[in-house]
């Protein structure tokens, strides 16, 4: 056993050496095990660098394949296997690197390698060599307690890529939550101290980076974080092109795409580099989107450019190869002029930059009018050229422009060179479209001429005026000229009733248009033709007519746009001789408006004869209003309703008839009517009048003294008029007419008598019952006068009374008097005034008592001033306070006084009521007039004063206030 153990290694060595020598000799494959020299890391790049050699390599060069395995955390967890083939030289140091998706600080990696000869010179080898031993790859970091380390730090990556964030927890730290900017992110726990957060498809947030920040639950104040610098993806330059204008500089331009710059020194804006392969020149571009490349070698015709853009993460290139002569961007033509401009044509000349006698340019010419290209033409040009624009419009602004390009190798048009010009005016080319309206007024024609404005292409300039020549056909020598300044489109002429030929032309500054002729005959405007009703559509009317003669020059259809208005706005349409119908359309047509069309036939002599009248609506509407109905022949059992006719132009449709509605209680309808029963025993009778010309309706069989209600409404094809309130009527009594016939004359007679009596009342009074017989006026006086005895009649003034007879004796010296108190105070004090001024200024010692009379005296109130009230003397022998104006007062007083004398009410009372005017100052009224009562306080109450019958008297005090005074005895007077 021991022998066999000792023999075994020796045997193997022999076998191996034999095998090796046999392989070398036979050229067969053999196994070479690689040997790892170093394994280094680049933490920021998360990169593992492997260096190895192939010992025992005896060949100078040998093509070999290597297989590298990487495992994570432990050797059995293989995460990466890669085959790498290369030609190995003798004693060569081989390199390979690998980028880890997980930061190397976070987990330990292991790496090993094996090899296989893969050279065609040798037999194919199917088996790998032995693996090298595992090498551990780790980046040592120490995490302090209560600290969190986040890897990678300051990572630069491209938008859309994936990244794995790794968190290394220090001691005592747990429950860590992380946020990406504002979004929470979650990871997987790798072990108790490491967790990984995978971020897929990261997006760009800001040039200042994307913040990832974490907090631990047990150390909330601590913030740990890292910044991911997410760069936008570098874009390939677009539309890269180069061109020259002068063969000295090539201007290369492109669209650069987004700027991928980031701050914090992470990444600058991408750079652009131009490389030309034939010259081998490389230039860093001075702008992001263009670069001027100086042409240094005139002989170089072909250029091969490579434009490269680059940032920290990526590089992109575009290539462009071209012949210089094919990339010539011609400069804009110069010295553009327009010559010999007239109303219809103009000549344009221009010059171009030429590069030799054989150099031909293609030029494009454009003529624009109001920004619209109306003419385009291409011409070949050597040095200079000209082009004639024809068919131009007079009095029109044009813009002529030209651009050129290389005719042999078209690359790009040059910029435009342009010039504006305006053609002069020309005489109007077209006759005016004219029409007329004729009406008779006071035995003469009023002819209104209308014409349509010429189109710009017809006017050929600004129309200044319109000339009208009126030729009298009956008296050929007579013609009148009128000039109507533009922009008028019509004029009115007053002509004698003759035949006329009217010539109308339009003038501009250059000349006159062809004339338009119209002939008016004697009967123009008086033609009577039948009016036909037509039915329009919402688009307009279809008008057709029957031609009367075969030699018509044409037809004219006219109508008013505003048939309801004063301003008719006459429209017309000229039609050819073979036309017998036309469609009239207008946006101005409105539903419910009647349009009247007249069709004229124009004869060869330019005379227009009215053929037809047609009228219709685009859309008929129900009537908008009901007629105003009047009632005639109103009797107790019938009345007639009548209404005026509508103006046809104001009808919203053709009126087909009327409906008459009659409403009453318990009414019998006429057999022709339609009866309908309404609530509350009301009956409605509907009568239809089918003749629109019938404008009256007799309502019969009515009951006297009954209420009836009626409504008259027209109807059209679109419906009837508005449902308005019914008009109410009441039939009269059967005898009421009779009574009216008797009573009215009687009343008139009585009134006349009353007026006559009133008129002669004074006379009658004086004659029949005078108040006091006036002896001077007595008829007897005439007899006395005749006897010439003037003293026959006694004068009262001349009498001195001897005895004053007391008719009634009052007990006690009581005097009743009403003194004017506060006129507005109904609670007049019963307290008498302490003193009452008398005529001589002393206070009377006679006691007064007061009472009130609440009778409202309207006459005093109405008089508007204070005054004595002419009340009945039997109640008011003594009155104070209320005043009337002096002039009224006199009359009143006079009457009262006279009345008091006449009506002495001694039988009824123990007191004698004495008028204030029965004053001791004088008994005649003349003396009263000299002392009128002055206004005092106003009162609306009658104040009365009762004076003891024995000594009744009143006087006016000096200060014009009314004061009652007791006269102690007439005898003392």
């Amino acid at each position: 056993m021991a022998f066999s153990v000792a023999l075994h290694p020796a045997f193997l060595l022999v076998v191996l050496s034999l095998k090796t020598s046999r392989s070398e000799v036979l050229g067969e494959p053999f196994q070479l095990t690689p040997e790892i020299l170093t394994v280094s890391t680049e933490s920021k790049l998360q990169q593992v660098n492997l260096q190895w050699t192939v010992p025992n390599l005896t060949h100078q060069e040998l093509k070999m394949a290597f297989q590298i395995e990487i495992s994570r955390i432990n050797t059995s967890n293989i995460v990466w296997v890669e085959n790498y083939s290369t030609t190995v030289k003798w004693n060569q140091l081989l390199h390979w690197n690998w980028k880890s998706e997980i930061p190397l600080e976070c987990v330990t990696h292991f790496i090993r390698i094996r090899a296989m000869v893969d050279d065609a010179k040798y037999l194919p080898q199917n088996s790998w060599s032995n693996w090298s031993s595992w090498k551990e790859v780790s980046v040592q970091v120490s995490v302090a307690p209560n600290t969190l380390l986040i890897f990678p730090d300051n990572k630069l990556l491209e938008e859309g890529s994936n990244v794995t964030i790794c968190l290394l927890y220090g001691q005592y730290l747990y429950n860590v939550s992380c946020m990406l900017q504002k979004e929470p992110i979650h990871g997987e726990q790798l072990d108790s101290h490491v967790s990984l957060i995978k971020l897929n498809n990261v997006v760009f947030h800001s040039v200042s980076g994307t913040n990832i920040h974490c907090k631990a639950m047990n150390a909330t104040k601590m913030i740990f974080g890292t910044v991911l610098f997410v760069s936008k993806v570098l874009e390939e330059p677009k539309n890269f092109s180069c061109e020259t204008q002068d063969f000295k500089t090539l201007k290369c331009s492109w669209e650069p795409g987004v700027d991928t710059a980031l701050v914090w020194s992470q990444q600058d804006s991408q750079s652009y580099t131009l490389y030309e392969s034939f010259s081998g020149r490389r230039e860093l571009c001075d702008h992001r989107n263009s670069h001027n490349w100086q042409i240094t070698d005139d002989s170089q015709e072909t250029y091969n450019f490579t434009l490269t853009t680059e940032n920290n993460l990526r590089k992109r290139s575009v290539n462009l190869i071209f012949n210089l002569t094919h990339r010539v961007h011609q400069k804009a033509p110069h010295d553009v002029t327009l010559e010999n401009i007239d109303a219809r044509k103009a000549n344009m000349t221009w010059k171009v930059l030429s590069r030799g006698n054989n150099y031909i340019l293609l030029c494009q010419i454009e003529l624009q009018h109001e920004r619209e290209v109306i003419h385009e033409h291409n011409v070949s040009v050597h040095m200079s050229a000209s082009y004639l624009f024809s068919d131009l419009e007079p009095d029109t602004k044009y813009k002529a422009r030209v651009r050129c390009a290389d005719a042999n190798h078209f690359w790009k048009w040059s910029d435009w060179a342009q010039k504006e010009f305006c053609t002069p005016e020309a005489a109007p080319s077209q006759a005016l479209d004219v029409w007329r309206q004729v009406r008779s007024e006071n035995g003469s024609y009023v002819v209104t001429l209308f014409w349509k404005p010429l189109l710009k292409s017809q006017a050929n300039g600004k129309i200044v005026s319109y000339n009208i020549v009126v030729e009298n056909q009956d008296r050929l020598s007579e013609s009148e000229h009128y000039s109507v300044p533009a922009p008028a489109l019509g004029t009115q002429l007053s002509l004698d009733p003759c035949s006329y030929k009217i010539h109308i032309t339009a003038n501009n500054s250059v000349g006159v248009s062809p004339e338009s002729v119209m002939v008016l005959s004697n009967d123009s405007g008086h033609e009577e033709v039948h009016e036909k009703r037509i039915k329009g559509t919402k688009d307009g009317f279809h008008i057709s007519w029957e031609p009367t003669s075969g030699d018509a020059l044409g037809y004219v259809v006219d109508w008013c746009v505003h048939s309801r208005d004063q301003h008719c706005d006459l429209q017309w349409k000229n039609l050819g001789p073979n036309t017998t119908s036309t469609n009239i359309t207008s946006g101005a047509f409105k539903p419910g408006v009647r349009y009247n069309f007249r069709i004229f036939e124009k004869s060869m002599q330019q005379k227009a004869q009215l053929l037809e009248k047609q009228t219709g609506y685009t859309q008929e509407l129900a009537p908008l209003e009901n007629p105003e109905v009047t009632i005639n022949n109103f009797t107790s059992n019938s009345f007639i309703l009548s209404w005026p006719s509508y103006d046809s132009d104001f009808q919203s449709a053709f009126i087909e008839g009327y409906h008459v509605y009659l409403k009453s209680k318990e009414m019998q309808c006429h057999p022709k009517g339609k009866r309908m029963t309404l609530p509350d025993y009301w009956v409605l009778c509907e009568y239809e009048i089918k003749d629109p010309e019938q404008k009256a309706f007799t309502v019969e069989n009515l009951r006297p003294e009954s209420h009836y209600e009626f409504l008259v409404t027209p109807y059209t094809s679109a419906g009837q008029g508005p449902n308005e309130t019914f008009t109410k009527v009441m039939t009269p009594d059967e005898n009421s007419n009779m009574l009216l016939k008797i009573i009215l004359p009687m009343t008139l007679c009585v009134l006349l008598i009353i007026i006559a009596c009133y008129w002669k009342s004074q006379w009658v009074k004086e004659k029949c019952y005078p108040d006091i017989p006036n002896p001077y006026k007595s008829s007897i006086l005439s007899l006395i006068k005749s006897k010439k005895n003037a003293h026959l009649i006694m004068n009262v003034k001349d009498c001195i009374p001897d005895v004053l007879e007391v008719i009634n004796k009052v007990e006690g010296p009581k005097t009743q008097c009403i003194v004017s108190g506060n006129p507005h105070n109904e609670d007049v004090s019963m307290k008498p005034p302490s003193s009452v001024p008398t005529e001589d200024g002393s206070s009377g010692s006679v006691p007064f008592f007061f009472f009130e009379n609440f009778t409202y005296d309207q006459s005093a109130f109405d008089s508007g001033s204070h005054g004595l009230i002419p009340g009945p003397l039997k109640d008011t022998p003594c009155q104070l306070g209320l005043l009337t104006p002096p002039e009224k007062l006199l009359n009143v007083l006079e009457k009262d006084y006279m009345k008091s004398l006449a009506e002495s009410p001694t039988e009824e009372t123990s007191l004698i009521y004495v008028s204030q005017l029965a004053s001791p100052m004088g008994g005649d009224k003349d003396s009263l007039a000299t002392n009128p009562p002055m206004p005092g306080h106003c009162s609306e109450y009658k104040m009365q004063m009762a004076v003891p019958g024995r000594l009744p008297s009143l006087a006016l005090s000096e200060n014009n206030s009314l004061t009652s005074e007791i006269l102690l005895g007439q005898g003392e007077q």
Partner: protein
Amino acid sequence: MDLRAGDSWGMLACLCTVLWHLPAVPALNRTGDPGPGPSIQKTYDLTRYLEHQLRSLAGTYLNYLGPPFNEPDFNPPRLGAETLPRATVNLEVWRSLNDKLRLTQNYEAYSHLLCYLRGLNRQAATAELRRSLAHFCTSLQGLLGSIAGVMAALGYPLPQPLPGTEPAWAPGPAHSDFLQKMDDFWLLKELQTWLWRSAKDFNRLKKKMQPPAASVTLHLEAHGF
């Protein structure tokens, strides 16, 4: 209004008294040296203006840094910003500061902060932000000059920067950009706190330097009523 002869005499006497005392009011005595008062007032005004200016600048800059730096409740510990001059101080300590020390601390703080602030400008991506920062730096330079003026008026020497202590804005290659953002946050925060503190400092100094004549004026005003 009812004025009697006695009142008129009283008012005239009062007016005369005021006129008699007018030369004693320093504010009206133009012949004398105004002292450091106006320049302290100007410095105080400048701090208030800078406070206002910083408010808008900080908003823009913190938005530029992104979340969480622009969140209102973000209050990280002051870890990496140890080199920044600290504005917060114990109230008793602050009260016990003499004028010279008070002014010196202000001057030194703004010298450092200005230097750091200029570093921010290099980080700013947008032209507008760079312009705002440059404008603020100019204003802060003005404040520094103003403080120097007050110190000179009071006869205090300007603090000399010690060799080697010049603050430098040179984050090492290993320095995390997140911590750098944190430093920026703290720079703006300290700047704001310093401006608040300076306003208090100069207000205190202003009151202290106010001439005693003000009391005479008040006395006269009281008489007037």
